[in-house]
């Protein structure tokens, strides 16, 4: 260990040694700073202003700068900085708006040298120029930055940020004249010290205040910023527009950020609230801190690397009234405790699973990747890097695809495309949709549509269309009265059964996997997957396989099975479960080729029962509870498509009975699915037809029409027809010269236009613009 330290010392050229240590302060610290040779540190806060020497054995108090019987507010420091050239010179920013410099060389007890009271509000930050001895910069809550020449009594220049609250100012390490300032409104400005009139560049770095910024000590273009939005961002300032090159998401607002010396990619952060730890991040690995220091008991307020060429010592002050020196080798490494595993479903039922190599290699019966296999292991190795000390992890990524030819989501897309949701009489819509469902081999869905039509159509005026199912089944009043109770109880029964299957399946799971020669998953992996509760939420797969789940005892798949299991059973080697179908008392929801129960048959099965229990003319409201139960059933099964389609088609007949939130949830899920499948038209149609306020406004969000005045070509700000600037009527019809109120059609080439009808008339006779601008107008 000692040898190592010596080496560090030798390499950095400094004379630093030490260990992790701390000392108690009398009061919370607001900021700390070290002197150039890294032997002393100054701590400043509301009620503390002291200098400590860093000895090998611990901190030793050298000087208390807070003197006087009744210390003034000038001692109440928000920030402190030790000059990096002049070892006797310090500057503090006081909460009352004063900027104070201190000269340790003064012979008397009071070391205060200069006092600038030019700022009207709290000064948040002071910063010495890295190479210029007499130049000091301050940034204040009043929105101004001031540059002081310490040889003069007043500031030499004032920079106005044109917004309130400068939170941080930092001179660039490499560019002599440049400094960066961060603001409470989220902006970062770059200034040239010689040009106080205007900033060189401004960009919005964060939402909410930017609490801190720090220039990279070596790379001249890099600026790190931290904000209340919990992000640390690294900007490349060499390009024309500031470009965000890295972004680290932390768990609390970022109060300070400091680049780590000698390590290009590392920076240290601490947070403003709640989180007391100090993190060192490798900006290339933004998801997990490279190292963490967990010593503080309250928020850390100041961090500084002890020596500008030594990456191993970090000093920190905190609200818990302690001052720490952290040794990098003592830091905890969160990555060592992390489990690098991940799992994700793809749109078409693919499943990707990544785990540590070591875990994966222990698998039993794993097969090497072959061309025809559905599993593609992909290996990631991080290149060994001398300075990089991140634990090296190699993960294996497995991708499971669904069996080719199964195309499990086809039905969804086809259904979405072909369903009709509006524009025709109710009965026709139902009939059409029933037919679509039937074509796609979804008899249960088809039956449901047919039943809906029967339930909600007015029995007095039977649908004009002739449905063969209907005609075979005889008169309508009778139909109207078949027992819905039976139906719903069948559904619930079935639900129960499925639940049991689910439970049962946990046991039989192992058998299943072994039975199938295509299965590669190890037990460990399978169990892991199975234990994941989220899997039950996967709603895409429920409909297509549920019949198998329901009928096949030996295979007893969970009905909300996940793809891994699915594809196993789906494979041709599995026996076809559908052959036993006709015995089924259920209405089938099978997607498979073999249809066994036609909707007609299932009707007759059910409608035999108590037709006399109810009077023949039932109001549609009578069916509402059962329809609601049906909708919920479908939604729970994951066929949210059905739930939403029925909801839309039934419209007012049902929507009042279901609470808005549930409806909204269904709509959202369905729209989300549609958009993932890029069925934009259908999704828009659904949005349009929805009756939920929250949904129908989706289409209106972020749609803005910018209108320019047709006379002066400036943007129109106000509503109405008069332009602010030229005080003339904008949007005048080029044909009749009246203001167009309503539909305005215009040529995109010359921007003349007018009433739709007028323009149409005009263009019948001429191809030129009616405003006689000579443009050959084109309307599409």
């Amino acid at each position: 260990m000692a040898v190592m330290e010596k080496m560090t010392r030798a390499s950095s050229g400094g004379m630093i040694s030490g260990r992790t240590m701390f000392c108690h302060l009398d009061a919370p610290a607001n900021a700390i700073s070290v002197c150039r040779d890294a032997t002393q540190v100054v701590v400043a806060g509301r009620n503390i202003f002291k200098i400590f020497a860093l000895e090998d054995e611990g901190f030793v108090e050298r000087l208390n700068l807070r003197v006087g019987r009744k210390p003034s507010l000038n001692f109440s420091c928000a920030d402190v900085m030790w000059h990096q050239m002049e070892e006797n010179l310090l500057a503090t920013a006081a909460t009352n708006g004063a900027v104070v410099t201190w000269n340790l060389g003064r012979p008397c007890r009071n070391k205060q040298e200069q006092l600038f009271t030019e700022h009207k509000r709290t000064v948040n930050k002071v910063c010495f120029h890295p190479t210029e001895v007499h130049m000091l910069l301050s940034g204040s809550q009043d929105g101004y930055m001031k540059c002081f020449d310490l040889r003069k009594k007043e500031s030499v220049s004032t920079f106005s940020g044109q917004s309130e609250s400068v939170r941080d100012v930092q001179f660039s390490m490499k560019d002599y004249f440049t400094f960066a300032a961060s603001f409470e409104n989220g902006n970062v400005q770059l200034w040239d010290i010689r040009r106080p009139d205007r900033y060189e560049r401004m960009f919005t770095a964060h939402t909410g205040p930017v609490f801190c910024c720090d220039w990279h000590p070596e790379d001249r273009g890099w600026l790190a910023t931290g904000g209340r939005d919990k992000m640390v961002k690294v900007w490349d300032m060499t390009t024309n527009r500031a470009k965000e090159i890295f972004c680290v998401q932390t768990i609390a607002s970022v109060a300070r950020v400091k680049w780590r010396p000698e390590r290009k990619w590392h920076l240290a952060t601490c947070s403003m609230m709640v989180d007391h730890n100090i993190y060192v991040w490798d900006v290339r690995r933004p998801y997990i801190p490279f190292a963490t220091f967990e010593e503080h008991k309250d928020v850390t307020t100041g961090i500084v690397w002890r020596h500008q060429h030594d990456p191993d010592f970090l000093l920190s002050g905190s609200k818990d009234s302690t001052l720490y020196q952290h040794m990098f080798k003592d830091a905890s490494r969160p990555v060592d405790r992390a489990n690098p595993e991940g799992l994700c479903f793809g749109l078409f039922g693919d499943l990707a699973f990544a785990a540590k190599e070591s875990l994966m290699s222990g698998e039993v019966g794993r097969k090497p990747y072959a061309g025809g296999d559905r599993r593609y292991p992909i290996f990631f190795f991080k290149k060994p890097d001398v300075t990089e000390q991140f634990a090296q992890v190699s993960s294996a990524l497995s991708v499971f695809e669904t069996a080719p030819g199964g195309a499990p989501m086809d039905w969804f897309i086809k259904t979405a495309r072909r369903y009709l949701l509006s524009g025709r009489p109710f009965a026709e819509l139902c009939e059409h949709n029933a037919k679509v469902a039937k074509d796609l081999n979804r008899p249960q869905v088809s039956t449901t549509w047919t039943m809906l039509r029967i339930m909600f159509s007015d029995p007095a005026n039977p649908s004009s269309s002739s449905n063969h199912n209907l005609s075979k089944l005889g008169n309508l009043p009778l139909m109207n009265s078949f027992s819905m109770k039976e139906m719903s109880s069948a559904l619930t029964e079935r639900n129960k059964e499925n639940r049991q299957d689910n439970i049962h399946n946990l046991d039989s799971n192992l058998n299943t996997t072994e039975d199938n020669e295509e299965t590669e998953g190890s037990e460990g992996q399978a169990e892991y997957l199975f234990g994941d509760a989220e899997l039950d939420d996967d709603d895409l797969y429920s409909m297509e396989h549920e019949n198998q789940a329901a009928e096949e005892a030996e295979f007893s798949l969970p009905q909300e099975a996940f793809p891994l299991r699915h594809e196993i059973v789906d494979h041709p080697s599995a026996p076809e479960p559908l052959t036993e179908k006709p015995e089924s008392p259920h209405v089938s929801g099978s997607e498979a080729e073999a249809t066994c129960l036609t909707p007609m048959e299932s009707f007759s099965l059910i409608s035999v029962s108590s037709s006399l229990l109810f009077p023949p003319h039932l109001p549609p409201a009578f069916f509402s509870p059962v329809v609601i139960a049906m909708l919920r059933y479908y939604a729970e099964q994951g066929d949210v498509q059905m739930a939403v389609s029925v909801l839309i088609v039934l419209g007012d007949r049902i929507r009042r009975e279901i609470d808005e939130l549930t409806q909204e949830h269904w709509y959202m899920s369905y729209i989300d699915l549609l958009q993932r499948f890029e069925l934009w038209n259908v999704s828009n149609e659904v949005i349009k037809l929805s009756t939920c306020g929250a949904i129908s406004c989706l289409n209106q969000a972020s749609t803005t029409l910018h209108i320019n005045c047709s006379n002066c070509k400036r943007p129109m700000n106000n509503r109405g027809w008069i332009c602010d600037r030229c005080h003339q009527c904008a949007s005048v019809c080029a044909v009749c010269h009246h203001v167009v109120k309503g539909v305005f059609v215009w040529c995109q080439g010359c921007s003349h236009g007018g009433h739709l009808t007028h323009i149409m008339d005009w263009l019948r006779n001429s191809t030129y613009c009616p405003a006689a601008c000579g443009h050959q107008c084109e309307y599409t």
Partner: protein
Amino acid sequence: MLEMEHTPGYELVRERQASPATETDIPRELEEHSPTSRHPPASVLNARRFSRLSSRDEQERTAALEALTQSVLERVENSARLERDILLQLLRVSRSCPIPDIKERAAELLKRAQEEGVAIPQALSSGPSAFIPADEILEEGAGQDVMTEAFLSMGRVDHVTMVMGLHPSYLNCFLRTQNALLQLDGPLPLPWRHYIIIMASARHQCSYLVQLHSFAFLQEGGDETWLKGLSHTPTKIQRLHTLNKLLAHRPWMITQEHIQELVSPGAEPRWSFAELIQAIVLMSHAHSLSSFVWGCGINPEPDQSGGHTFQSTAQSGLSPLQQNNGQSDSPNRQEWSEAVSEVELLMERMMMVQQQEEECTQEEMLTRFERERSESLLEPAEGVRCVPPDSISQFVPEPDFSYQDFSPRGEQSPTTMRAQDYSWEDHGFSLMNRLYGEMAQLLEEKFQVVYALTYRTMAMHTDVDTTTLRKALWNYIHCVYGIRYDDYDYGEVNQLLERSLKVYIKTVACHPEKTTHRMYTSFWRHFRHSEKVHVNLLLLEARLQAALLYALRAITRYMT
């Protein structure tokens, strides 16, 4: 029974679903007429009929209006009894609904009922505020669209909304926050939220808010017995009492122990952080809104008790309040010119404050702060000790606990909170964002809007930079609550805020129930009402922020 035939089938089912308690009572509509109806009370059921009027769907609105008309006319013609509630609701709609059709129809129905010999109620007040003439509010108030939106989202346009409508940009974000607080997803159940508002506004004897939210509480399906008093509620709510009391009157006394009592694992029934933070926001919101209600002299809603009378007031003409208004609006010539010179003086001082580069010692600064903080301004009002009215007292255990003037200099004065050490922008927001994210954003926006709100006018002057004045107001209110800004010279407060204004502000902020019309009229006599409302908005937000800061600081301390 009559009503039944006119209501479409689904309507019935919906009503039943909405009120599960009645599902078993089959002949519900019989009960409606009996005076001792079981819950939900008939008034709530009637109110539901009106809430349909504020549907976003225009057709639905029309249908609701038709249904309402029919059922009322039906009753009038068959000389069946029209419930009081219906009449009152009609009165409210006829006075405040921003949608002309509905408003006119309601007025028509009332008139029709009167012709049939039904005693119809009259609103006692001429407008939303007792201090501000109604026509001024109507003239300068927010546009139709804001009001319509408010009506559609809340089901009514209450007086507070109408008065705030003088500052539409603020009203917008106020309503959004309130909606998020009371309606949108959150850890607390909806009736609870209203109940917390009730118990909080009761601390300031704000019967306006108590009645408004009692009504909403029942509508959300709250248990009627809770309204009998705090002792009828679950212990969990009762445990909020201490915090409520402190937040309302002496927020600087809130410590981490108070938080610990509520959230620590040993405490049963225990509050989760998420619930607690919502409750805290609700309570502070209600406290500061009570200040606004009192400060602007908000009149009771026409459907609240004290807001209407069934005696015909047509002959008597103006109510006493209105007569008052009439007098105060026409001061005599001498007063007038005095007032003008006051404005001039204030302008001058503002200029002075902006330019002055006066240096003074820290000692002096501290003295100035302490002087502002402990100045006792309430001597004259002290004599009249308000006793909470009966309708409210059940929500107010320990009614004697109230704001206390800081003892002048020294002993026992609570430690000041330094704005630099715990500010909303840095600390408050960060913590709130963690515990109740969406609310942090909304509050932040609201604070920003109110802090930046200016029309650059002052009384008859235009294009005035009022920053210093607004800052003085804001900082003075924080000062009264013991928050000190290191970088602010409290001498400015003394220069810019005249004594009568300070009396008003301190009363409204600390003892809102003691606000009088006199106080309101005696400050800034030449200023416009909208400017006085602006002062009240600053007051509301500054007070809210102060209370939140203390509560959040206690939570922070508990968490670390």
